[in-house]
């Protein structure tokens, strides 16, 4: 229940402003070129309030290159369009479906899959 979010966010690294030089000798020639480091949260999660992470428990979905222990990033806010990969419910269980032109069955779509995280360790 205790909301620690506010304390977690470390703003300084995500600052787009030019930083004042920190060098004690020659000021860095890069002063005006520094940028915030890449933050995967910004890249992979566009709508955080509608994005969910879902783990895959077996190889049932390997036709979509989704294997055991992969984590799907699913955005419920996106409209399902042709050729998109979606998470749908069929008979009370989850399926991964690619929306195709000839789809005959009416899909109960849970959300649109935007990325698949794979660990290759």
């Amino acid at each position, binding site marked *: *229940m*205790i909301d620690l979010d506010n304390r*977690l966010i470390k703003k300084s690294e995500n600052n787009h402003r030019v930083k004042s030089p920190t060098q004690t000798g020659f000021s860095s020639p890069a002063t005006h070129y520094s940028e915030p480091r890449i933050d995967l949260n910004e890249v992979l999660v566009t*709508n955080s*309030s*509608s994005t969910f*992470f*879902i783990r895959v428990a077996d190889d049932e979905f390997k036709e979509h290159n989704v294997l055991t222990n992969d984590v799907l990033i699913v955005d*419920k806010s996106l409209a399902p369009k042709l050729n998109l990969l979606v998470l749908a419910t069929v008979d009370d269980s989850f399926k991964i479906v690619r929306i195709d032109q000839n789809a005959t069955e009416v899909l109960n779509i849970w959300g649109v899959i935007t990325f698949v995280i794979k660990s290759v360790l």
Partner: protein
Amino acid sequence: MIALVDCNSFYASCEQVFRPDLINRPVVVLSNNDGCIIAANKEAKALTDIPMFQPIFKIRKLLDANNVTYFSSNYTLYSDMSRRVMDTLMTFSPRVEEYSIDESWVDLACLKIDNYNTIAHTIKNTVHKNTGISVGVGVAKTKSLSKLANKYAKKIPKNNNVYVVDSEQKRQHLLLQLQVKDIWGIGKKHAIRLQNNGIHTALDFANMPVAWVRKEMTVIGERLWRELNNIPCLNLETEPNAKKGIGTAKSFGFKLTDYSLIEEACSYYVAEVADLLRQQQSLASQIEISLQTNQHSAVDRQYRNSIGIQLDTPTDSTVKLTKEALKGLRQIFRPGYRYKKVGVNLTQLVHQKEVQTNLFHNPHKSESSTITNVIDTLNGKFGKNKIKVASVGNRSKEWALIKEHRSPRYTTQWGELMTIGK
């Protein structure tokens, strides 16, 4: 215009988002410690022979017989889902008042729209699409009317969970359809008194002379009366008021006789409330500790006591508060009882900046606030209670709440994600 957006059976809905197999099936959620049912969805409420607020052990068989799925409360999940709903509402209007975990007012006056029906449906559909939570939307010119509109939206299936009071005719219709007891802010006592005076519907109340209302129900009743007559009296509050007291009292998972375990639980709760205290930038001048046995047990000897400790100077330091709390606990603890519950209550709160210091003490800003800051930062980064006062100990399994049927914390724990396949 103001929209009141209210989630339908919120706790059960949160569970169902991640369990599509439970859609259209009865679901109930149990209180902390799996004591009794605190929330039920529409399907579960329809099973009239299931008594609400009954201890679970008494009705478990009944639930199983009716195929009711039950969950321990998963407040971590509900809190995150609530955040998602609120954030979605913020995309419609910059002015949102979060009234409770599942209810918000959205100010639509600042939007340039003329069709409130369309926007109300859009809000409902967007929240459902983005979060999986279904909501009802009541739109009206005042807070009290929008609250009634919301109630009516859900009451009549034809309304499809949306009701907009955008004409005098619809206002009259709404007030005629609802009873005085449905009016937000009218308690049971007032409702009975009004009914005894022949005032039954909300419209009867709204049509009374204002002087009569003021005389019978003071200025508070008059404010309600005005609100129902389309005159806004209650403003949207977008900044939460600081709490005047912060407390917690939770039952142990087991009855405890061992003082050292009760001490651990007590220290843990002190840390929790002290954290909330700091988040609202207050200091506590008094801490109250209470301890009790199980009042419902016929076989146990009963004991309950509480103690209030006045602090020299107001503080927000977990270390100081724990020290004082345990001093108090030691005074009220009597050996030989089976204890059920310990409570911690911080009272006489003052804002950090408005503190009166004691002539003989250093100002409250001392070395302890530096330590507290470091602890908060570390816990913020690595997780709740990673750094703790030693008296919290590590035997929480021996006293913590029982949450046997809690669902995974799908959205906040990487190790508890929803899984698909198999």
